[in-house]
């Protein structure tokens, strides 16, 4: 029933088919020569070839030449997932003078060769069937024009850690309006807490302050702290975001902040120090704050009334939360990580007083100004580092399948060896023992490892089956280890401080994940569409991920990721109009019986009942509002409403081809 409109009117379909080897990714399992040969016998197929890489420049040019020389008017590629290269071959069709939608990309890698590596004959039969359904679809396919939609030249960056700061700064430099929102009252994330970053030793807070300083000089950046996303709607180019901004309470300058902080009766663990020390409910963050005023932690404030009596009009407890609506073209989610917190008793954590985690140790180094390193009032003369705590965990038999961290956090070996070098420089008398599983100081970081070994740090390898035990003895911590090089003997090292080299774990962002339906991988971090081809994108066009929310990265790597996401966001936010796929519903008024089913079904209100002259009421689709979900298609009693690009006859044609 679908009317056949050819790209070149009056011509029969002339289809070219290109079956890809993908190196061996496809051809090691699927007999691509057999598939290409079999397809030569399909009606309307003019040429069918198998090619080492469909996506190579040479192959693309070959397709263009074939289209021109053989008068092809349809292109079918059988290769990887259409998520990767569908756009590539639509581009080929376009460059050859065809409508871009007269190209179809069948997936015979992710959905044939890879899952059916155990069954080459079955994989080959499946690839052939998928190719035939592509040909069946193409036979009656019609040219379409992409829809255009206005786009907002602004980007929302969620999370003002070092990644979000980098993304915001890059986008602002491109002239894009940036809204940077941060859940906490201050900026900089975990990086602001790092004392000396590797390999240069630059303080983390110095890097953060530099970025914040540059950012605040940009006229096109708005920073919101205490801010969270309340709701979101819309689509690429036109997201509408409601941002909830919690009250700051401290509203103006005062000469008496120190008195108010001293008078505050509340004492809570200081999250900036990873709970090592306490802070008050009113406090001056050590990370950059905008505006630069103390903040009040309203979750812990008892409203005792001391602040207003000391600070007067500089505090306003009647301040209410605000909700702002932002319109943005793209969104970058850079919400960061949480450091792994060992459970009570793991390597003595929480049980032996001289045991700290790597982030706590870094705060100790950053805040220790004296000539000696002291911990709990005692001079530290010896240190033990235990590596891979909370990383590279194995799922134990019968542990109930609880979450374990099977991945390597990749920054921690480097950070620890770097800390060791700084400790040696500042406190040369401290002896350091490193208990490691595998040393992963990759790239130039290897030189830090070499330096640490040269200057006398002792590296002792342990096996994961026989981890060190940490106990307490005479105020020392005792690390007992079965070293890999000693067959039976275990060795005990009394030390003043044990540092558990803890990795990164995914942050619990349930509310945000639900709002945006963010894709989460098996390790709990956000998962990109493709590690190499689409490394900062999600399946929702315009919604991007960056930084350690995606997987563990060190500061250098996370900055690269922030810049990558900014560059990708700019591909949406620098345009005033975006091309959207034309796969929207339309109504054949000669068949529509005005049942109204589609109106009720449409979640976007895209369908209305129109009065047509001479024929009466018929459904009508507003194509600017239609999102192309196809929900209406399923309920139409007469098949009057169908989706462009996937009409009901096309569905049936494909089903029949797939069943052959």
């Amino acid at each position, binding site marked *: 029933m679908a009317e056949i409109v050819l790209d070149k009117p009056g011509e029969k379909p002339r289809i070219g088919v290109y079956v890809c080897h993908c190196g061996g990714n496809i051809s090691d399992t699927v007999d691509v020569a057999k598939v290409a040969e079999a397809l030569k016998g399909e009606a309307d197929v003019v040429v069918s070839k198998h090619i080492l890489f469909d996506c190579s420049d040479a192959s693309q040019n070959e397709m263009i030449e074939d289209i021109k020389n053989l008068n092809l008017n349809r292109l079918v590629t059988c290769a990887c*997932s*259409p*998520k990767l290269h569908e756009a590539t071959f639509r581009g080929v069709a376009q460059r050859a003078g065809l409508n871009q939608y007269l190209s179809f990309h069948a*997936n015979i*890698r*992710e*959905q*044939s*060769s*890879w*899952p*059916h*590596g*155990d*069954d080459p004959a*079955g*994989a080959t*039969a*499946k690839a052939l*069937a*998928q190719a035939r*359904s592509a040909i069946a679809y193409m036979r009656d396919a019609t040219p379409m024009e992409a829809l255009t939609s206005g786009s907002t030249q602004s980007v929302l960056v969620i999370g003002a850690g070092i990644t979000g700061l980098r993304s915001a700064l890059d986008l602002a430099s491109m002239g894009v309006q940036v809204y940077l929102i941060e859940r906490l009252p201050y900026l900089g994330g975990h990086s602001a807490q790092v004392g000396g970053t590797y390999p240069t030793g630059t303080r983390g807070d110095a890097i953060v302050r530099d970025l914040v300083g540059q950012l605040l000089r940009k006229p096109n950046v708005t920073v919101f702290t205490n801010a969270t996303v309340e709701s979101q709607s819309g689509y690429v180019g036109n997201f509408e975001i409601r941002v909830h901004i919690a009250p700051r309470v401290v509203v103006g300058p005062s000469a008496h902040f120190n008195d108010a902080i001293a008078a505050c009766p509340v004492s809570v663990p200081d999250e900036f120090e990873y709970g090592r020390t306490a802070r008050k409910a009113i406090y001056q963050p050590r990370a950059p704050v905008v505006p630069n005023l103390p903040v009040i932690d309203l979750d812990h404030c008892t409203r005792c009334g001391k602040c207003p009596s000391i600070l007067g009009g500089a505090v306003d407890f009647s301040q209410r939360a605000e909700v702002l609506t932002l319109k943005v073209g793209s969104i970058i989610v850079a919400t960061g990580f949480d450091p792994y917190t060992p459970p009570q008793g793991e390597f003595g954590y929480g049980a032996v007083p001289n045991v700290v985690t790597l982030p706590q140790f870094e705060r100790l180094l950053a805040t220790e100004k004296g000539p000696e390193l002291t911990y709990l009032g005692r001079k530290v003369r010896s240190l033990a580092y235990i590596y891979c705590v909370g990383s590279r965990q194995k799922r134990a038999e019968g542990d109930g399948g609880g979450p374990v961290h099977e991945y390597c956090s990749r920054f921690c070996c480097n950070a620890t060896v770097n800390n060791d070098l700084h400790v040696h420089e500042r406190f040369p008398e401290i002896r350091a023992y490193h208990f490691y599983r595998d040393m992963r100081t990759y790239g130039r970081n290897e030189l830090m490892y070499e330096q640490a070994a040269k200057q006398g740090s002792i590296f002792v390898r342990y096996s994961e089956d026989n981890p060190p035990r940490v106990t307490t003895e005479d105020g020392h911590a005792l690390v007992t280890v079965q070293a890999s090089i000693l067959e039976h003997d275990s060795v005990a090292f009394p030390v003043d401080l044990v540092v558990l080299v803890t990795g990164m774990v995914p942050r619990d962002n349930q509310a945000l994940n639900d709002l945006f*339906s963010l*894709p*989460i*991988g*098996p390790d709990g971090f956000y*998962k990109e*569409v493709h590690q190499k081809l689409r490394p900062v994108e999600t*399946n*929702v066009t315009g919604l991007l991920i960056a930084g350690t929310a995606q997987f563990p990265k060190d500061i250098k790597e996370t900055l690269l990721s922030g810049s990558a996401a900014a560059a990708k966001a700019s591909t949406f936010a620098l345009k005033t109009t975006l091309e959207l796929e034309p*796969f929207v519903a339309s109504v054949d008024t000669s068949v529509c019986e005005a049942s109204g089913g589609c109106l009720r*079904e449409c*979640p976007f209100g895209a369908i209305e009942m129109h009065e047509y002259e001479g024929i009466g009421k018929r459904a009508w689709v507003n194509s600017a509002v239609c*999102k*192309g*979900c*196809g*929900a209406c*298609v*399923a309920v139409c009693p007469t098949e009057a409403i169908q*989706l462009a690009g*996937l009409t*009901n006859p096309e*569905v*049936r044609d*494909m*089903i*029949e081809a*797939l*069943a*052959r």
Partner: protein
Amino acid sequence: MPAPSDFEPKILVISTNLISDPGIDYAGSAHVHYPSSTRMLRFPCSSMVRPEFILHALTHGFSGVFVAADGGDCPFLRDCSDRTALRMQRAYALLKEHGIEEGRLRMAGICSVCSDAFAKNVKTLYDAAKRMGPVRGNGREATT
């Protein structure tokens, strides 16, 4: 008549462009095995699945249809699961009318990383279809 043991049921998998198809791709990337007699068809959203499409498949050579639904991750519809479930109800009724076993149709939400859930569901349906043999009743498979 019991199904011959060499009967290889063809299973039509209807996936969704943004959610379950990436999940099925992920199964491939992770080299998770599932029966190769599956054939894949992409829709924008599982709410588009007309019950008649399912009947069409089961009367044109398929022995089972698995709808890999968007579930809670649907980018279009918050209530996508409910809507798709309604389609399935209508489809079950339609199959019954045509004397086709309801067990040949299966639906589950498959998220964009649900590789194992996909393989498990499709294998379960494949095993069921293998036990049932080719579609009889009004199905054309019985006559071919």
